[in-house]
């Protein structure tokens, strides 16, 4: 079972998240119509490692882009073009650069979609359709609570100014 609380202001949401965490109530997730600044800090979310995926992808792109050109022009198909050396580094730079950017962008976006379980046809649970419009939703996991606790949690949510509280199974 899950309990969700609804807020209509960013400040109330941040407040509620802080209060709930102070009371050792773990928050399952928060939904908002736009990225709320400071929410990751309030929820204690760790910094994402995604930029590293871009770096690794970019490095692979650069190395393979350069490697391909070097291999083609020194081994597979050495050909004299305008008297330039076979391994003409300056003219390999543009393609190397483009490969690096392409691989980096693709890796970070794929990693992001995969990690967030987003993608064509993905059907993630929507608690309330107002969450993408103008409401802020705090979702608590209540499966381990006994009935009394759930009541207490509900009180806590009300205390923090939740406009609406819903139960989900």
């Amino acid at each position, binding site marked *: 079972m899950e309990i969700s609380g609804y807020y209509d202001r960013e400040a109330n949401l941040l407040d509620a998240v802080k209060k709930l965490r102070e009371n050792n109530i773990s928050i399952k997730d928060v939904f908002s119509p736009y990225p709320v*600044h400071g929410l990751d800090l309030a929820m204690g979310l760790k910094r994402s490692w995604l*930029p590293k995926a871009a*770096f690794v992808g970019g490095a692979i792109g650069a190395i393979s882009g350069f490697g391909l050109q070097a291999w083609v022009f020194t081994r597979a198909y050495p050909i004299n073009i*305008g*008297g330039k050396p076979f391994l003409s580094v*300056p*003219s390999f*730079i543009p393609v190397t650069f483009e490969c690096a950017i392409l691989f980096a962008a693709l890796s970070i976006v794929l990693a992001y979609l995969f990690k967030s379980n987003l993608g064509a046809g993905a059907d993630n649970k929507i608690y309330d359709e107002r969450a993408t419009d103008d409401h802020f939703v705090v979702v608590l996991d209540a499966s381990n609570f006994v009935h009394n606790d759930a009541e207490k949690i509900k009180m806590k949510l009300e205390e923090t100014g939740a406009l609406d509280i819903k139960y989900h199974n």
Partner: protein
Amino acid sequence: MENIKLTFKFSKKIKIVLGSLILFGLIALAYGILNFSSEKVWSALVLNSVNFVTISLGATFFIAIHIITQSGWHVSLQRIPEAISMYLPIGAIILILMIFGINHVYHWTHEIHHDPVISGKEAYLNIPFFVIRLVIYLSVWTLLTLKLRKLSKNSDIDDGLKFYNKSRTYAALFLVFFAISIVIFAWDWLMSIEAHWFSTLFGWYVMAGVIVKSFALIIIVLAILRSLGYFEFITTDNIHDLARYLFSFGIFWMYLWFSQFMLIWYANLPEETFYFVKRVENYKFLFLLNVVLNFAIPFLVLIVRKFRRILWIVTSMAVIVFMGQWVDQYLMIFPGSMKEVQSIGFFDIGLTIGFFGLFLWVVLKSLTKANLLPENHPYLNESFHYKNI
């Protein structure tokens, strides 16, 4: 914010340190005059005068561009570039003194009638016109810099918004003039050393270098002041932003370097390639070092977010970039002005240290003349409170 020092005290200890740096530079100069040809001495003097005058010009650029874009992040450290820009009048005088050595560095001044290519350029490359141009841009730069500084200082006493709005006109004027004059400056003082050579990109390439250098110096001066116990209010996010500037304009510089080099290398026209042939063949180490210091090292270090937020790492990168830009300038001047291949020694480095001492003296002296925080600036709060992703 009670314990924060809002005024700078130019203590005797610092003065002694800086004084000895200047003395060191003078010793190096004396050593150079006794041991080396006048070409070498004047070339080194031109290098340093141009280097520091453009750094202070870049500081005005920093201020002007942030005024015109209504930026707020930089306000807490704005007094540092302002102080750096105050070196401009002194640097301008030193640069004017360089006219006395112009014969030793610029071949076109005396070879004009023996050389058909150079004599074709006489309408532009002649000493009177050269001096007129120099006086024009130095005086406009200085006037606008002083005006912007005055408006900023006035805002401490009176309504900040009024002076801020006023300064926008001058900032716009400065940027327009800067964009044109720095290109001509680069042709005059750096490109004309190789009087046969030409490259349309050269002016913008020099401009990118100037901007990078002045960012580096802002970071270095900030680090020095931090170690003396000032500017404690600079946040990690401010440092992060400075590091980003250093990083991204370093890439921009590299981009222009590559564009210029690659196009000339690729087309392989003798009237252009000789410039790079000379430098690659005779100064191979410096030629590669230029790219390593200006691009490779700062790029690989500052690409890591964590490092962009640590002052000492950012500062060491700034020092590396400053050295890299020095090498770049060396490569523009020495292979052109000197027939024999030169090596960098005590004289070249000592002279730069002396100039640096003088530069820092002027900068710290001007820091004492205003509060360290422009308290009435309309965006002051913003520079404390924003957060970087």
